[in-house]
Each structure stands twice: as C-alpha cells, then as structure tokens.
C-alpha cells in the first residue's frame, strides 16, 4: 500500500508564496479531485507533492520517504504524473508515445522487453487505443491525444496517479471518457489526484474533493460535506444553487 502524505507544506517562488501550509493524503482506491480557481496554487501543490519543487517548510512523503529525496526514476515508478498537456515535439507513433511511460522501468523505444511490452499493451487496451496504436500522433484529434497521454501515464503502472487538468479543452464526451479511464484505474487499485475545473465531473467521479483558494486548502471531504452555495461563492465567485449532487451556477458575482 503506497500512500502520499503532504503535511503543512509551504512552497515559495523567491519571496512569493505559491502554496501555504497545505496538508492532504492520497491513498489507493481514492479518486480525489482538486478544485479551485486559476492561480489558486493547484499545479504548485501537485509539483510540491511530487517533490519536483522543494518546499520552504513542511514535507511531502511517500510511505514515509520524502518525495524530494527520491530519484526521478523512483518517483516515477510510484507516482505517475500527467502535467497539463503540451504538444508533442515529434509525430511519433501512438505505441511509442505510450512506451515512453515505461522510461522509469528502463525501457527503450523500439526494443521493449517482456514486462514493458505487456504494460504498454495493457495501457493501450485500457485507453481504447488499439485501433490507433500504429497511427502517427499528428493525425489524432485532441480527445484521442488526451487518451494517448493517459495511456502513457498508466503504462508506468504506478500505484498513484496525479493529473493536472486532463480534461482541458475536450468535448463533453471525451471528458467523460478520460474520467472513466481514471475511474477504471482506481478500480484496479490505484489512487488518483486530478485537477478539474468542472464541478459536475467532480460530482460524478470524485470520492473526495479538495478545495483550494488563494494558496490554501479550504476544505477536504466528500461532495456532500464540501459543496455548498457558500463555498462556490467564496472559491469561484459565482452565484450557485446546490441540490444533492446537482449544482446550478447562475453567473459571476
């Protein structure tokens, strides 16, 4: 059982605070959605948790080991990280891009060994990319490309998965499909932390929600516990009505 525990973490960029005194945990079997307005510090929180940025104070630990003390390879084998999606530099084949996810296991493109080839195949099947495996990535739509990125993150077969806006710029159907893939991953025993901007997707998929605003974590709990009209007003500055899992937003305040 791999568990990520962030406690009292503060991140600074020179003199400006990016995240202040944040604490949360992520364990297998959970699909945690991180919500908050632009500039709230969500991406910084993820990077700090991953150990990519050294905290000014506090600690992020993976089963008790400080994440910034892990080597890049060790970290990647335990924590799959899908940052905000950027264009690929070269028009590689889909299977090769997915295989890049095995880098932390020492895989090299073009000559995948047994375990690596199997993991790549499983990720391709899980993300419904079998038809596209031999296609060049520059012939894919945005939604298909997002699945390729998910597949390469899953191919690492890490116990924990952290994704930064994996559904950005996708149509509703593809947003559902990406979230389905992440839910399936959690069903297979993984733990996922996902940044979303869509409260409806969060309502449908999250087992837990973490709310951020102005560099701080405001709330951490189930949808019922943390989603109120007041919260949406303070976090997003919108007028909203909440009725069970249904949220209606009436516009900016």
């Amino acid at each position, binding site marked *: 059982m791999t568990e990520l525990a962030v406690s009292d973490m503060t991140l600074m960029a020179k003199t400006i605070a990016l995240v202040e005194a944040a604490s949360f945990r992520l364990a297998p079997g959970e699909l945690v959605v991180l919500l908050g307005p632009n500039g709230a510090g969500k991406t910084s929180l993820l990077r700090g948790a991953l150990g990519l940025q050294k905290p000014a104070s506090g600690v992020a630990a993976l089963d008790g080991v400080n994440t910034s003390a892990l080597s890049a*390879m060790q970290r990647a084998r335990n924590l799959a*990280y899908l*940052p905000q999606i950027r264009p690929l530099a*070269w028009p590689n084949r889909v299977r090769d891009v997915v295989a*890049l996810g095995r*880098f932390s296991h020492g895989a090299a493109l*073009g000559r995948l060994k047994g375990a690596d080839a199997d993991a790549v195949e499983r990720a391709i099947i899980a993300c419904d990319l079998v038809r596209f495996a031999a296609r060049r990535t520059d012939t894919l739509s945005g939604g298909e490309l997002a699945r390729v990125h998910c597949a390469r993150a899953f191919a*690492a077969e890490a116990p924990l998965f952290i994704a930064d806006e994996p559904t950005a710029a996708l149509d509703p159907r593809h947003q559902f499909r990406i979230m389905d893939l992440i839910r399936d991953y959690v069903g297979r025993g993984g733990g996922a932390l996902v940044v979303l901007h869509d409260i409806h997707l969060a309502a449908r998929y999250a087992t837990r929600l973490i709310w951020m605003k102005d560099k701080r974590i405001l709330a951490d709990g189930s949808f019922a516990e943390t989603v109120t009209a007041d919260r949406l007003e303070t976090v997003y500055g919108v007028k909203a009505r909440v009725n069970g899992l249904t949220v209606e937003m009436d516009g900016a305040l």
Partner: protein
Amino acid sequence: MKAARYLTPGLLLASVLAIFAACLLGSTPLSPDRVLSAFFGVADAGDQLVVWSIRLPRALAAFLVGAALGLSGAALQGLLRNPLAEPGVLGVSATASLAATFALYYGLVSFSSWVLPIAAILGALAATALLTLAAIRTQSIVTLILIGVGLSSFAGAAMSLVMNLAPNPFSLSDMINWMLGSVANRSFGEITLVLPFMIAGAAILYLTRNGLSVLTLGEEAAIGVGLNLRQQRILTVLGAGLATGASVALAGAIGFVGIVAPHIVRPFVGYDPARSLIPSALLAGLILVLADIGVRLVHTDNELKLGVVAALIGAPAFVWIAMQRRTTHD
C-alpha cells in the same frame, strides 16, 4: 517499419564503399586492385603513400567530422525538441572555430599538440552551455536561433579582427581554412589527436539517448516519467560540445550537415530522437565523404573548401525545413 532494420547496416555499408571510392578517385585515379593491395601493404611505395598518407586519412577525416556533426545535431534536436537545432546554425561550430584560431594565433599550439583540440572543444562547450541556459528560460526556438546568429556573427567578427591583425599571409590562409572548413592534407596523426574526444562525446550522447526520447513529451512530462532533466541537459551539452569541438579541431567549421542527416533519417526511425542518433551520424559521415570526393574532382584554381560545398547544399535544405514547419509547434 522494415526499412528501419536495414537503415543502419545499409548506411554503414554505403559509408565503407564511399571511403573506398574516395581512395580510388583523385588526380591520379587508382584501380580497385591497386587500392586493395595498398590496403594490405603489398603495393608499390607510391600507391602506399597515396592511399595511406593522403586519401584514406582525408576520407576518414571527412567521415568522422560528418559523423560527429550528425550525431551532435540529432542529439541537440532531441534536447531542444526542434529539427532546426544544429551545431552550425546555433553558432557552436563558429565559436569553437574562433577558440581554435585564437590558440593558433597566439602560438599556444606550440606548448602541446593537445592545445588545439582542447581550445576548440572549450569554445564549443561555452557556446552549447550558453544556448542551453537560454533554452531553460525560453521555449522558443526562434530565440535560440537568434542567439546562434549572434554567436556566429560575434565569432565571425572576432575572427576577422584576428585576421586583420594576422602577422603574415601564412597564418592568414590558415585561418581562412578554419572559417571555411576543409579536410585537405589531414594525417592519421591529426585524426588520433581528436578521436578520443569524438569517442567520448559520442559515448555520452549514445548512453543518454533514451532521455532524448522522453523529451518528446515536453520537459515537465519528461520529468513526470522519470527523467533527470538537469543531468540530461548537462550530458547532452557535454557530449555535443566534445564531438563538435573535436570535429572543428580537425576540419574547421562545417555547417548544416547536422541538420540535413537527422531530417532524412527521422521518418525511418519513427521520429524517435534516440533511434535517430546512429543513422544520423552514419548518413552525415557519408554525405561529407561524398561531398569531399566532389570537392576533389571539381578542378578549380584554388581548391574548393568542403565547408563551402556543405553550406551550398545544406543552407537551402535548412531554409526548406524551416518553411515546412507549422508555427503551432513553438
């Protein structure tokens, strides 16, 4: 991708044939059997001399210089995630050339024959390191190429200054060789001097090649799949600096080979920077051997410089590749 399997062996075979052909052709053409017997030391003294002291070292120098530049180009393109990156375009060769000229001009070379390759390599490393620092701050290849233009111009100006002050016509013509690039009159002695640096650079680039593959994903995502980005940058810069500097020490500044070869190779290796390294090196070596044969066969009053021919072929190819690119990539 059947073609990919035959790519490396095919290029290797073509390179060997081209080097052999380079030994046949020249002002006094030799027949294949005379060249072969010279190879095995059973030909007459004249043939031995022509093959072992003139043609073979010259062809090998052209091949090694091309291979080092092709490898450096492919690796820099992987690191900077851009097909226009190349030691010549980025000003690395010119800076190395300037450093070498300085070493020559101030007579530092008289201390030790190692001074020249080391000066060229230090020049190459300084330029590559500066470019990498810039690459950390900006994602834009345009900025990098502009920095390269700046480096080249500065190196050119500094070189003109040194030429202005050149004490005698002899050193002047030496410097022109450095600027234009040539493998004429190279000996095995000169090759052995730079070979260790080329091998070291090539080994570093080859051993770190898988990191270039994951950089396809972008830097943040490459870190996400387990790349130590800092280490990758340092090693690629070091490897490319060693290989480019060594090639400049042997032949002066020869541009654009490092851009053309990887561009041709890439579709055959699934656009994977790691798998493009070896074929790019072989193809670039092959191109320079063939170009040098051309240089020797064309009769002109003053000998054509290899670097000039390489630029005449390479520069239009560079423009063409640049025009093919979609702006969305930057």
